[in-house]
C-alpha cells in the first residue's frame, strides 16, 4: 500500500548537455566537479544522479538557485528532455521505455505542465487555449468547450472566455495556463516557476488559488520555485538542489529545524521575508523635499502644499542634511532660531542594500520616516514605518 502510494519515482536521474557524455561520466565517477568536467569536456552536467519520490496527492517542491537544474529535472518527468541515464517511474512504468505513441498518450492523459511565461497561444482566445488538450485528442467542439467553461469558472475566469489572451493580465494568463493543464484531468501537474513572472500581490493570490484547487481536486503537483517562502507555503515535501544535485529532501518543518548542511541552513534562514527584502524593495520617493539654501519659508510652503508636518532637508546634489519639523520651521520664521540650528541632523539613515530586518529596531524608535542614502550621503528615497511593519507580515 505504502509503495503504491508513490505515483512518481525518480532513480539516479542524470542529464548532460554536450557530445562527450561518456568521458564526462568517467570524470564524475573519479570525483571531478561539475565545473572541471565542463572545462575539460565541454559537457554541462545539468542534473547529477538525482533520486526522489512523490506521493499521490502531495505538492512536491524543487527549490534551488538559477542554473541548479530544476527545470531540467521537471522536463525529464514528461520527456521534454530525454534523460541521459536513470529511471523515471510513473505508477510503476519506466516512462523512458514508452514508444512515441505511448509517450503521447501519457502526455495527453496523465501529466500536464504549467510554464513560467505561460506558453499560451496568442492567436486563440481563452476558451480555445483552455480546450487545447482536448482538441488534440479529437474531442468534439461542443464537448470540449463545455468542459473548458467548467474549468475556466473554477480558476475564476468566467466571463473572459471570449477574450484574446493578449488582453489578460499576468495573473489571469497563468489562470488560463492552469485551466489548460487541468482540462485533461491529469494525475500529475508539473509547474515550472509558474508564479515567478507575477508581481508579489498577484503571486500570493495565485498561491492561495493553487492550494484551493489542490484541496478540491487532490492532484499530485511537482512545483518549482526559487523562492523559499513559496516553497514552504505550498510544499508538503521540499527538495533543495545545488549544482545539479539534491542536497536535502524533507518537510518544511524538518528542513527548518534540521538542515542537512550550511547551504540548506542559509536557504531556510532566508525564509523570513524581512531577510529576503532589502530597503530598496520597500522605499518610496519622497514627495516633500526642501533645499537648505531656500530657507524656512520654502520649507513651510512645502509642508503646507503636501500636508506634512515635517520635511526632508537636502543640500547641494541632493546630499541629505536632516529633517525640519513644522514647529521648528515656524520658530525660524519668527526669528527665534537659525535655520541651521532648527534642522534635526541627528536622525537615523539607511542604505539601499540594508535588509529590512535591520531597520526594525530603528523604525520602532524613530519619530520620522527613515531616509535612504547612498555612499555619498545622497538622498535616494525614504522608508516609512508602516512599510517596515508591513514587510513583517
Amino acid at each position, binding site marked *: 500500500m505504502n509503495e503504491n502510494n508513490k505515483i512518481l519515482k525518480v532513480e539516479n536521474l542524470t542529464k548532460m548537455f554536450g557530445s562527450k557524455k561518456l568521458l564526462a561520466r568517467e570524470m564524475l565517477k573519479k570525483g571531478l566537479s561539475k565545473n572541471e568536467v565542463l572545462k575539460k569536456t565541454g559537457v554541462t552536467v545539468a542534473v547529477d544522479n538525482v533520486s526522489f519520490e512523490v506521493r499521490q496527492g502531495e505538492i512536491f517542491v524543487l527549490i534551488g538557485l538559477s542554473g541548479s537544474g530544476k527545470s531540467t529535472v521537471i522536463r525529464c518527468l*514528461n520527456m*521534454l528532455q530525454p534523460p541521459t541515464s536513470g529511471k523515471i517511474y510513473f505508477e510503476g512504468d519506466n516512462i523512458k521505455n514508452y514508444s512515441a505513441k505511448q509517450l503521447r498518450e501519457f502526455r*495527453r492523459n496523465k501529466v500536464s505542465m504549467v510554464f513560467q*511565461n505561460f*506558453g*499560451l*497561444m496568442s492567436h*486563440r482566445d481563452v476558451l480555445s487555449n483552455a480546450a487545447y488538450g482536448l482538441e*488534440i485528442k479529437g474531442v468534439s467542439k461542443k464537448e470540449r468547450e463545455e468542459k473548458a467553461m467548467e474549468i475556466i469558472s473554477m480558476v475564476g475566469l468566467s466571463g473572459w472566455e471570449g477574450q484574446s489572451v493578449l488582453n489578460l493580465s499576468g495573473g489571469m494568463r497563468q489562470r488560463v495556463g492552469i485551466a*489548460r493543464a487541468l482540462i485533461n484531468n491529469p494525475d500529475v501537474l508539473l509547474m515550472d516557476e509558474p508564479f515567478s513572472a507575477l508581481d508579489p500581490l498577484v503571486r500570493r493570490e495565485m498561491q492561495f488559488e493553487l492550494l484551493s484547487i489542490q484541496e478540491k481536486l487532490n492532484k499530485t503537483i511537482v512545483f518549482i520555485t526559487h523562492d523559499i517562502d513559496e516553497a514552504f507555503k505550498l510544499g508538503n515535501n521540499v527538495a533543495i538542489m545545488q549544482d545539479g544535485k539534491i542536497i536535502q529532501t524533507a518537510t518544511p518543518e524538518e528542513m527548518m529545524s534540521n538542515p542537512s548542511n550550511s547551504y540548506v541552513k542559509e536557504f531556510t534562514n532566508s525564509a523570513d521575508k524581512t531577510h529576503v527584502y532589502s530597503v530598496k524593495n520597500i522605499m518610496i520617493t519622497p514627495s516633500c523635499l526642501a533645499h537648505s539654501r531656500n530657507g524656512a519659508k520654502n520649507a513651510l510652503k512645502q509642508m503646507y502644499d503636501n500636508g506634512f508636518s515635517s520635511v526632508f532637508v537636502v543640500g547641494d546634489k541632493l546630499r541629505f542634511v536632516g529633517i525640519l519639523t513644522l514647529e521648528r520651521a515656524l520658530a525660524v520664521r519668527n526669528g527665534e532660531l537659525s535655520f541651521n540650528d532648527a534642522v534635526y541632523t541627528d536622525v537615523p539613515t539607511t542604505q539601499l542594500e540594508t535588509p529590512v530586518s535591520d531597520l526594525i529596531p530603528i523604525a520602532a524608535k524613530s519619530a520620522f520616516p527613515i531616509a535612504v542614502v547612498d555612499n555619498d550621503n545622497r538622498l535616494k528615497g525614504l522608508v516609512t514605518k508602516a512599510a517596515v511593519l508591513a514587510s513583517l507580515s
Partner: protein
Amino acid sequence: MHKLLTVFPEDIYIDIKAPIDKFINFMLQNWSPFFEAVSKSLQLFLNAIGSAVNAIPWWLLIIAVFFASYKVSKKISTSILYSALLFFIGVIGLFDMMYATLAIIIASVIISLLIGLPSGIVMSASKKISIFAVPVLDTMQTMPSFVYLIPAVMLLGLGNVPAVIATTIYALPPVIRLTSHGIRQVDVEVVEAAKAFGSTKMQILFKVQIPQALPTIMAGVNQTIMMAISMVVTCSMIGATGLGSEVIKGINRLESGRGFAAGIAIVIVAIILDRLTQGVFKKNE
C-alpha cells in the same frame, strides 16, 4: 611587366560560357518532352486563370475592390479612392490589358505559394537545409531579374508561359524566407507547451506554429505579390501580353504617351494589391 599591371592577364582564362551553353543544349535535346509537358500544363493553367479573371465584369471588379478596401481600411474615402483609380484604368482604355497582366501575376503568385509555403515549412524544420538554402535564396534575390528570362526563353520559347516561369522564380524567395523565419520565431515555450500536452508534429505545425507565424507569412505573401508585379515589364520582353507589352511598344515606337499610360496602370494595380494584402495581414496581428 607594365602591361601586366594595367590589363588583366589573358592567359588566366576559364571559359564558363561554353559549359553553360552545353548544359542548356543538353537539356533541350534530352529533356524536351519534359519541357513540352511542363509548357502545355502551364498553358492550360494559365488559360484557366485567364478565363476566370475575364469572367469578372469590369463593374463587379470595381465594386469588389470597393468593399475589400473598406473591409481592410474601415475608411469610406480609401475605398472610394481605390475604386476610382481602378475605374481610371478603364477610362484610359487599359482594362483588358490589365486583365491579361493580372492573369499572369495571379498564376505566378499561386505557383510561388504552392512551392514557397511548403519549402518555407521544410526549411524552418531543418537547420541543415536552412544553411544550404539561405545563400541560394540570397543569390536568387540579388540576381538581376533579366537573367531569369534567359533559361525561360531557351527552354520554353516566347510567350506567357515562360513569363510565368521567370516571374515565379523571381517572386519565390520572400515567401520561402518569411515562412521559415516566421515559424522559427514562434515562442519556444508555446511550441514546447503544445508538445507537453501530447500534440503530434503535424498538430504542432498546423495548430500552433503556422497560426502563430501567420502575420510574418502574410508579409512574405505580400512581398511575393509585389515582386511578381515588378516583373511585368521585364517579362514583356519575352512576349508576355498585357500592360508590360504596352510599355515595351511605347519604347520601341517612341510613343511616350502609350508607355506612360501603361506605366500608370501598373502602379495603380501595384498600390491596390499591396494595400489589400497588407490590410489582410495587419488584421491578423
